[in-house]
C-alpha cells in the first residue's frame, strides 16, 4: 500500500558536485506542490571533494526536522552509497547512474530498490552536458514518486530566470523530462512512496539566516559590518545581495574587532546596526560588547554557533555558546539573549533584537547555529507577518525634543527606569559625551564611589525592565504532562517531532521551548517545571547549558539529559528513542 506524502530524499556527493543547489531546487518544487518541506544541508570544511549531502523531508504537515529514515537516496558518488545506504528504509530506492559500481545485492538484501538509470547518458544526450546529471537524478526521484513533472519544469525555468526559453533551460528540461519519464515508467509502478500535490496559496522556502536577515531588514537595520565566518556569513551575503533595495551599508572589515566596533560607532551615530559571526569571531568581539554596555550604545550581535571549542568543526552544528554569551566580557551589565528555534522565531529575533537594543541601549545577542542557519523550511508567508512588526527606538530624542531642551544634555542621566534619553550627535543642544570609563551623568569619567554605584544600579535596572519585554517560553502539548521536554534554540524542530512521536504512543508529554532566554523567565519556568513529573533536558551540547542556567535561576535540577555533541543535529526519532531508552526506561 502506498504511503503518501511522508518521505525523505537525500542527495550526496563531493563538494562542488552541487548536491546543495540541486537539493534546494527540488525542495522548491516540493514547496510549490504545497507539501511540508524541511531541507538540511551537511558539508565539510573544504571547497571540493570530500562528502556533502542535502536531505529533504516531505510531509502533508509542516515538518520541522529531518528524520533518520531515508526513502530515496541519490548518490552522486560511490561514497554516498556507503555512507548512507543503511539509512534507506525497506521499500526505499537508490537512484543511481547505470554505471555506478555498486553491488545491487547490497541494496536488495536490505529490501532497498536499485533504481538504475543511465543518468549521465541522458544528461549528455538530451542536454549536452553531464553536469545535468543532478537534474536527471532528481527528475527520476520525482518520476518514481509521482510528483507531477510541471513542478520540476517550473523550478528549472525559475533557476534560469531571465534566460527563460533559453537554450540552457530547454536543455535541462529535456534532460529532466527524459529522466522523469524513464523513472516513472520503469520504477514508478513498483515504488510505494508517493507524492501528491496539495494546492495551497504560494509558500516561502526559507532558512534561518535568511529569516534573521529579513527580520533585520524589516526592523530598519541599515548597517552590517562583519568578517566572514561560517555559518554566519550568509546573513551578510543575503543583505549584500539586497543592499540596493534596502539601502543598507554592508562592510566587510579586517577582523571581527573592527566589525563590532564599526557597528557600535554607527549605532552611536543613530542607525540600527548589527554584526554577525560565529564563536571565534564572537570571542574577538568580547571587549567591544562591554563597550556597548558601558556607553549604552545599542548593539545587535548574531552568534551562529558551530561545534567548538576553538576552530572545532567549522561546518557542524552545536549549541554551546549559551553561557558564554550570558557572561562574556569583564564586569557586570545587562544584555538580552534571543534563541530562536524556527524560521518564524528567527524572523522575530531579527526584528525584536533591534527594539531591545534601542529601548534599553544594550547589547543584544541572537544565538542561532549551523543547523538552523542553513536548514530550509516551507512556510506560509503570513507566518513572517510584517504586521506584527513594531519599530520601537525607545527614548530617542528628536530634533524637536532637543530644540526645546533648556538644560545641559546628560547622556547618562540617572532615571528611575535606568534608561537615559538618547540624543544623537549633531544637534547644538545635545552635545553627546560618553566613555568606556565609569562616568558621571554628563559622560565625564568618574573616580568617586557614590556615582559609580548609582550608574551601576542605573544600568542594571534596565535588565529588570527588559525582563518585562521578554517573551515567555513556549509550552506545547499536554497541559497535565507527565513528561516535559525542555529545550532552546534550533532543537525546537526535532524536539517538536519527538513530542509528536511520543504523544502518538499515548504519553502525556509537553515541550518547553526557550526562544528568548535572557533575562531569564524565572517565574514562568518555575510555574511549569515545578508541576512536571519528569523533565528531560535536550541540548546540542556536552554540559547541558540550559539545564545549568535553569538550576542557577530556579534551583530546579533536571536529572535527565539528552545531549548530543557530535556536531550533527538531532532528529525527532533520535530524541524520541533516547527519551524512551534513557528516561522512560528508568522511571
Amino acid at each position, binding site marked *: 500500500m502506498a504511503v503518501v506524502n511522508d518521505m525523505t530524499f537525500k542527495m550526496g556527493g563531493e563538494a562542488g558536485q552541487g548536491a546543495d543547489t540541486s537539493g534546494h531546487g527540488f525542495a522548491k518544487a516540493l514547496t510549490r506542490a504545497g507539501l511540508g518541506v524541511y531541507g538540511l544541508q551537511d558539508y565539510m570544511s573544504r571547497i571540493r571533494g570530500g562528502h556533502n549531502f542535502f536531505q529533504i523531508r516531505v510531509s502533508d504537515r509542516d515538518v520541522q526536522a529531518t528524520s533518520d529514515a531515508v526513502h530515496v537516496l541519490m548518490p552522486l558518488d560511490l561514497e554516498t552509497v556507503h555512507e548512507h545506504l543503511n539509512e534507506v528504509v525497506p521499500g526505499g530506492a537508490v537512484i543511481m547512474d547505470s554505471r555506478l559500481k555498486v553491488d545491487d545485492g547490497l541494496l536488495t538484501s536490505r529490501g532497498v530498490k536499485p533504481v538504475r538509470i543511465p543518468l549521465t547518458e541522458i544528461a549528455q544526450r538530451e542536454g549536452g552536458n553531464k553536469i545535468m546529471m543532478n537534474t536527471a537524478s532528481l527528475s527520476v526521484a520525482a518520476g518514481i514518486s509521482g510528483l507531477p513533472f510541471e513542478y520540476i519544469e517550473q523550478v528549472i525555468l525559475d533557476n534560469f530566470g531571465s534566460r527563460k526559453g533559453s537554450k540552457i533551460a530547454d536543455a535541462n528540461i529535456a534532460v529532466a523530462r527524459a529522466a522523469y519519464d524513464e523513472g516513472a515508467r520503469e520504477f514508478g509502478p513498483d515504488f510505494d512512496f508517493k507524492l501528491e500535490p496539495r494546492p495551497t496559496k504560494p509558500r516561502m522556502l526559507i532558512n534561518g539566516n535568511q529569516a534573521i536577515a*529579513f527580520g533585520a531588514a524589516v526592523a530598519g537595520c*541599515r548597517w552590517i559590518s562583519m568578517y566572514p565566518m561560517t555559518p554566519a556569513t550568509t546573513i551578510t551575503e543575503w543583505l549584500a545581495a539586497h543592499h540596493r533595495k534596502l539601502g543598507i551599508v554592508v562592510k566587510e572589515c579586517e577582523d571581527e574587532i573592527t566589525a563590532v*566596533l564599526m557597528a557600535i*560607532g554607527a549605532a552611536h551615530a543613530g542607525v540600527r546596526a548589527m554584526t554577525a559571526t560565529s564563536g571565534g569571531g564572537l570571542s574577538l568581539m568580547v571587549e567591544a560588547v562591554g563597550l556597548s554596555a558601558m556607553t549604552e550604545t545599542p548593539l545587535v550581535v548574531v552568534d551562529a554557533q558551530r561545534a567548538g571549542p576553538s576552530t572545532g568543526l567549522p561546518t557542524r552544528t552545536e549549541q554551546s555558546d549559551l553561557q558564554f554569551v550570558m557572561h562574556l566580557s569583564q564586569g557586570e551589565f545587562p544584555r538580552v539573549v534571543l534563541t530562536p528555534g524556527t524560521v518564524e522565531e528567527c524572523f522575530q529575533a531579527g526584528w525584536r533584537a533591534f527594539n531591545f537594543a534601542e529601548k534599553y541601549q544594550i547589547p543584544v545577542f541572537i544565538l542561532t547555529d549551523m543547523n538552523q542557519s542553513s536548514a530550509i523550511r516551507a512556510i506560509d508567508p503570513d507566518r513572517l507577518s510584517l504586521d506584527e512588526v513594531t519599530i520601537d527606538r525607545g527614548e530617542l530624542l528628536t530634533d524637536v525634543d532637543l530644540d526645546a531642551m533648556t538644560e545641559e544634555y546628560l547622556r547618562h542621566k540617572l532615571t528611575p527606569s535606568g534608561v537615559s534619553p538618547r540624543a544623537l550627535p549633531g544637534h547644538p543642544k545635545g552635545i553627546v559625551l560618553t566613555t568606556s570609563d565609569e562616568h558621571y551623568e554628563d559622560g565625564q569619567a568618574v573616580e568617586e564611589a557614590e556615582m559609580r554605584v548609582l550608574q551601576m544600579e542605573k544600568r542594571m535596572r534596565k535588565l529588570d525592565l527588559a525582563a518585562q519585554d521578554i517573551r515567555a517560553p513556549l509550552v506545547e502539548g499536554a497541559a497535565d504532562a507527565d513528561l516535559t521536554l525542555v529545550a532552546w534554540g534550533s532543537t525546537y524542530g526535532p524536539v517538536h517531532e519527538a513530542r509528536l512521536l511520543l504523544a502518538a504512543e499515548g504519553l502525556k508529554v509537553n515541550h518547553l521551548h526557550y526562544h528568548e532566554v535572557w533575562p531569564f523567565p524565572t517565574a514562568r519556568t518555575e510555574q511549569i517545571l515545578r508541576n512536571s513529573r519528569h523533565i528531560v533536558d535536550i541540548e546540542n551540547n556536552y554540559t547541558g547549558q540550559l539545564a545549568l542556567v535553569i538550576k542557577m535561576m530556579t534551583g530546579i535540577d533536571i536529572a535527565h539529559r539528552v545531549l548530543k555533541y557530535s556536531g550533527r543535529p538531532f532528529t525527532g526519532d533520535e530524541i524520541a528513542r533516547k527519551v524512551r531508552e534513557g528516561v522512560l526506561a528508568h522511571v
Partner: protein
Amino acid sequence: MSDLKLFNIDEKPTWCPGCGDFGILAAIKQAFSQLDLQPHNTMLVSGIGCGSKLPYYMKANGFDALHGRALPVATGIKLANHELNVMAISGDGDGYGIGGNHLMHVMRRNPNLTHIIENNQVYGLTKGQYSPTSDRGYISSTSPEGSIEIMVNPMAVALAGGATFVGRGFAGDPKHLTQLIMKAIQHKGYALVDVLQPCVTYNKINTYDWYKERVYKVDDEEGFDSIDFGQAWAKAREWDERIPIGVIYQEDRPTYEEQVEELQKGPLMRWSPERPRDVLEAIKLEFV
C-alpha cells in the same frame, strides 16, 4: 571662524603639569575655531591612555572608546553620519601598538577622518613601559636591559599603507601644530597626524629639548613638495639627527564615504528605520 571659547569646558585636565598633551589640546581647539567648526558638528573619538582623555577636556561630541580602538568606532560614526567632522585620537601604544591593524586598514579605505596620534614614545597611563615608538634600547620596567625591537616608523608605514595625508607635528610648537591640524581636517580623506608629545613624567629621553634640537619644518626646505611621493618617502625615513614636521605627503583619492552608494543621498542616520512596505513584500516574494 567660530569663537574659541565655544570649545572650552569646565573640566580640569588630569595630565601632569608640563605634559605635551596640553599643547595638543590647545592646537585642536584653535584649529576647530579657525575652521569655523562648532561643538555639535565635531566628534572626537579616542582610545584609552593619557592622551586619549582629551575628549573630556573640550566641548564637542566625544566618545572615549577602548584602548587601541578609536579608528573603527570613528569610521562607523563617520559612515553613519558623514556630516560630522570626526577626529580620532590615539596614543602611540594605542594607535601603533594594539591598534596597528586598524591603522593599516583605515588607510586603504580613506574615510574622511583626522587622526591625531599623541606620540610620547612611551605608555604613559600605565606608568612608563616602553611603547612601539620607544627608541631601541629604551629602558623601562618591562625592558630593564633596554628594548630590543626597532621602533615603528609611523610616517613610512603610512606611506606604504596608502594614507592620503601624512603629517607630523610637535606639541612644543602649538602654532605650527594648529596649522597642520587645520590642513589635516581640510584634507578629504584619512589624515594621519603624528604629534611628538613629551611625557615629562616617564620619558626622560625624548624630552622637549630632545625634540627641539631635532625638529625642522619641511615647509622651510626649498623645493620640498608634499605631493611628490618620492620626496615624502625620503622625509619619512628621517629620524635621529633631524626630524621633519609638517605635511609630509598629501594625495587626492576618493574618500570611503564617496564610494558607498547608500550615503550619496545624505547621512545614513537620517533615514527612518521604517522601510516601504512594498519593497519588503517584494523581497518576501523572492522566497516563494
